[in-house]
């Protein structure tokens, strides 16, 4: 038995197809599906960093400390449990501890015959947390030379906050680096040693006077071997794209974050919510469109009921008849999906530039394409299911 598409059968079944209803469904569905796909592609872009560099949304470092209340003589510090729990957070990539000096430091410089001396402190973090890696960044106890990295903020503060009002000269990083410094270190047992030192680099990331970890471990063991302190500050490498839970975690744990680093995570979260809202609207519009088509199918099959009954009396099965309507909804839904996908891809150009400027965008279009295909399959399946149900109902009366 042949089951090919027959022109004369299609002539019968296409009667009563309302072009207006079909176009109404198509238009509503193109709009609905476009909105869904725009939401998906925007979500992808807003969660996708387009650069490996240290920019607004890519991986980033934050310095954390515990909140100090009132006046505390007991140092507020992170316990091992605190650090372990923190390291398990999804947005944490790497945790580094600040090691504070357990000895007294006095630094002095000699400028034009005049000496300048002040008490200082040192801190160190593991080398891979630095944003600068100077050539001299190492310590050898025999050479008695301590390389120092200063916060860039200190120099900026001096040049623009202190030097200008005081009528002092502004100085560059190179000039500072050329100044020899003498460090006098006094240990817990009042033992004192003198070291040469120099500023070998400036860090934008670390707001401290940093020395190599090698030196710090050696010096703490040498000048104050008995005392051991928990880390009072931590430097954490974070994944901004996964940082939506960071703020609430830090708040709950009473941890403070240095600077204004929360904003990127908040914007990322905001964009995520926006794309969710957009996609939800698309789903509502598409559901309404689907409702229109389902009603149209009911109406069409009811209008063609007598014709379908006569075909069934001639031996046509519901499956054979449904093929003609299946082809119609498949073609309509395919055209709708192609149009909506094209619209979504074109709309991407509207935000691509802006997102790129803040380090986002450039996400793969594959999730959107898969969603479009899934939509096509699901909606067409649902349409076919409705058609078969209706035809089965007509069969019972034929």
């Amino acid at each position, binding site marked *: *038995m*042949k089951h090919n598409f*027959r022109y*004369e*059968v299609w*002539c*019968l079944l296409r*009667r009563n197809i309302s072009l207006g209803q079909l176009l109404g469904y198509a238009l509503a569905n193109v709009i609905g599906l476009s909105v869904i796909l725009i939401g998906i592609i925007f979500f992808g872009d807003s969660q996708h960093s387009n650069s490996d560099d240290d920019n607004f949304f890519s991986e980033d470092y934050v310095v954390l400390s515990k909140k100090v209340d009132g006046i505390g003589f007991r140092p507020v510090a992170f316990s091992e449990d605190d650090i372990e729990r923190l390291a398990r957070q999804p947005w944490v990539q790497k945790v580094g501890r600040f090691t504070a000096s357990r000895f007294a430091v006095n630094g002095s410089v000699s400028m034009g015959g005049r000496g300048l001396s002040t008490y200082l402190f040192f801190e160190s973090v593991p080398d891979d947390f630095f944003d600068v890696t100077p050539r001299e960044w190492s310590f050898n106890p025999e050479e008695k030379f301590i390389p120092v990295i200063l916060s860039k903020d200190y120099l900026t503060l001096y040049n623009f906050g202190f030097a200008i009002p005081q009528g002092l000269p502004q100085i560059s990083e190179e000039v500072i680096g050329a100044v020899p410094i003498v460090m006098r270190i006094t240990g817990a047992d009042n033992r004192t040693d003198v070291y040469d030192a120099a500023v070998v680099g400036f860090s934008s990331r670390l707001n401290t006077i940093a020395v190599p970890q090698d030196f710090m471990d050696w010096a703490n063991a040498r000048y104050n071997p008995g005392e051991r302190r928990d880390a009072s500050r931590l430097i954490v490498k974070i994944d901004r794209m996964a940082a939506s839970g960071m703020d609430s975690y830090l708040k709950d744990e009473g941890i403070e974050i240095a600077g204004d680093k929360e904003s990127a995570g908040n914007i990322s979260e905001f964009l995520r919510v926006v794309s969710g809202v957009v996609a939800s609207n698309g789903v509502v519009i598409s559901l309404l469109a689907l409702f229109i088509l389902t009603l149209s199918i009911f109406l069409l099959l009811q209008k063609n009921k007598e*014709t379908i009954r*006569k075909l*069934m*009396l*001639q*031996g*046509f*099965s*519901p*499956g*054979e008849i449904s093929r003609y309507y299946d082809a119609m909804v498949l073609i309509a839904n395919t055209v709708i999906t192609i149009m909506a996908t094209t619209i979504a891809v074109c709309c991407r150009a509207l935000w691509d530039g802006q997102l790129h400027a803040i380090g986002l965008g450039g996400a793969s279009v594959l999730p959107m394409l898969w969603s479009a295909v899934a939509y096509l399959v699901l909606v067409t399946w649902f349409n076919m299911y409705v058609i078969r149900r209706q035809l*089965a109902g007509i*069969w019972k009366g*034929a």
Partner: protein
Amino acid sequence: METITINNLLPMVFAGMEDTDKICSSQIWGEQSFVFRRGCRMCIHAESGCGKSSLVNFIYGSRRDYKGEILFDGKDIRSFGIERWCDIRTRSISFLPQDMGLFPELTVMQNIELKNNRTGHKSRSQIMTMLERVGIAEKRDALVGKLSIGQMQRVALIRAVCQPFDFIFLDEPVSHLDANNNRVVAGIISEEADSQGAGMIATSVGNHLLLDNAQFISL
């Protein structure tokens, strides 16, 4: 298919009327067993409202509002699924309903080809020959909706023989045909049924199909 057996068949609408003259005088309704055999020729006649159309529709599976049972080669047709029925309607039983079941929006030829293209039973020239024999060859491209009832009956009869069958049921097939056309269509149907060894069962209210050697059954 060799036999169609009907046991204690009664339309639902006649339920409770088993003891009335209408049912008692019937050779089919309420009978313990009545058999249509392949190759039979029967004319079932009755007045209007006695259930002629109901009977053929019950057998064709297009109505199920009856008591009793109908068996095709011993199998109860109530157990048949959609695919089985479609197969039966395409290969085993041909049926010409009283309303003819034609599509007025299609031409004469399209109506016939709608079935013949599925079965591939007749060639185009055979169809044309039959149209010529019943005198409507020149109407082949006319819309069926524009034909007279008599012309429609001839189109429906030709379409009914465009398939293989073991039984052909014709519900008042010549009610709008004159004696001459009656004889012509009876000849076409008889030839086709004979060539297939099939049974022919026609109903009528008086103007019955002019079949030779037909057995008359009173419903």
